[in-house]
């Protein structure tokens, strides 16, 4: 009898491990046009032929939600606020705790909702320690792109885009909805989503490093950048 129980427990443990491996993973791949992002070393060119390097690339994914079973079911990622940072590869692998199939949409807020901006000190990925927080004018930085560019008129040719803002006329959080048409029979192992930094400069607005090298506060420029970069994501591969 005892043996049976132990065996059963062993099996269920194995089952848990096995199914964990099948859980769907969202993999974020950072690109600059058709090149894969390399921090510091590579020089890229934007649509205005302005050269630039990238030192930092970070953004918040909030309330990640996935519609699957052809739109019949909704899955909400258990971690409400997820900070993605280029330099930390673990943040670019989002492991859902469920195997999903027949996914129709992936949606999230790119940024942090207004309420979290006015509710005091937060923990985990929202800990102000993460450096995505303005201390002199309370609020989260939703996305950061920093580097150097010969086109920049700022000190040491730095360019630095810190985008945030939660107040009515300054809100820079943007909803992202990615549509998928996927009819697989078995659960998806991996969805690769690319984020293209070149989209920061064009789209809703043309933003040249030579004209605007620094954005360090909420306001018009921050919202213009957000309106551009909200379109940086595309689904590249489903495995």
């Amino acid at each position, binding site marked *: 009898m005892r043996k049976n129980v132990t065996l059963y427990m062993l099996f269920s443990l194995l089952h848990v491990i096995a199914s964990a491996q099948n859980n769907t993973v969202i993999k974020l791949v950072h690109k600059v046009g058709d090149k894969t992002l390399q921090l510091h070393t590579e020089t890229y060119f934007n649509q205005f032929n302005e050269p630039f390097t990238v030192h930092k690339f970070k953004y918040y994914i909030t309330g990640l939600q996935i519609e699957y079973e052809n739109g019949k079911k909704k899955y909400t990622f258990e971690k409400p606020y997820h900070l993605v940072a280029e330099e930390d590869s673990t943040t670019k692998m989002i492991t859902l705790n469920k195997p999903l199939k027949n996914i129709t949409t992936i949606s999230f807020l790119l940024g942090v909702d207004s309420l979290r901006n006015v509710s*005091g000190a937060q*923990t985990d990925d929202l*800990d*102000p320690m993460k450096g995505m927080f303005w*201390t*002199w*004018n*309370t*609020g989260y930085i939703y996305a950061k792109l920093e580097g150097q560019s010969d086109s920049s008129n700022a000190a040491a040719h730095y360019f630095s885009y810190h985008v945030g803002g939660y107040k009515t006329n300054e809100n820079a959080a943007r909803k992202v909805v990615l549509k998928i048409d996927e009819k697989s029979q078995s659960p998806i192992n991996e969805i690769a989503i690319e984020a293209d930094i070149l989209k920061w400069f064009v789209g809703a607005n043309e933003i040249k490093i030579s004209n605007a090298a620094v954005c360090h506060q909420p306001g018009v420029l921050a919202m213009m950048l957000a309106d551009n970069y909200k379109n940086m994501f595309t689904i590249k591969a489903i495995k």
Partner: protein
Amino acid sequence: MKQTKAFLILLCMVCVGIAFITIEKYKPTPLKFIIPKGWPKPAFDFKRNPLTQEGFELGKKLFYDERLSKDSTISCASCHQQFSAFATFDHPFSHGYNNSFTTRNAPALQNLAWQKEFMWDGGINHLEVQPITPIVAENEMAETLENVILKLKRDTAYLRMFKAAFGDATINTQRMNKALNQFMVMLVSSNSKYDRVMRGEDTFNLPQRLGYEIFKQKCASCHKEPFFTDFTYRNNGMPLDATINDIGRMRITGNKNDSLKFKVPSLRNVDITYPYGHDGRFFTLDNVFEHYRKNMQPIHTTDSLLKNKLYLSNFQIGQVTAFLFTLTDSGFLKNPKFAAPAYSKPTILHQH
């Protein structure tokens, strides 16, 4: 089968027992926050951060701890000194890390539980995030939050105190700030002579009474009782100091109509919080009165109440000053509850 069942039941009992013991162990002493008679409901959310003796003691230790700064020389209390109602005594600007100076005058810390926004420009929207600002500012404590949390985690006294205050020894930004908040919201100043007179326990002398009448007419629309501020942002006619270029509230709102507006400061304990003004440009109350009646430079954003300046005769100035002195709350300034904890180094005060 029976055996397993019995085992499982036993396991359950042990688990419940352990849970019970740990719950039993975390029993902080609630700290009562007393709202002075006639005062409005505080803005501070006591449900989010319930005050306890343990949280308060931890907050006090943090407030007086120099290790919150990069080179362990500056604590919150270096700039916020109890005998000056937690302002920086006798300094227009406070000394920060590595011989730097702040660019604004450190305000008194009192009655913060009723305040919704912080700093001269109201840029901080919650008391719980406020301590981060001086910790990371290059001209204040110049430290990173990571390092501060690391330093605290290495100190067993802190591990013990965080556990006593919050139930386990987790140390993070949120808990540090919550503890600091518990200390800061307890800094209530409500027992000056003025308060005693209002409660019918004392009487003003003649100049104080006349001064109070003038104050109610000429000053109270901005310096509103009982806090002696209405917590709004206004331009009281102080011209821009081009060396500092502080545009005040406009830095936060981006609105030109907010240029040179600053938070109306409380006048409680005003006698000992000199120098005055957001940049400490007035060394004495007389300087402030000269500003209001003569030197002020009204511009388009100057408050409509002050468009024609604010004239007071020398007599009246004497009377208003006599009244302002009744706002000194010596019980608050000397309350041992708020003084440096015995087991930490006394705050170093430089003399010059």
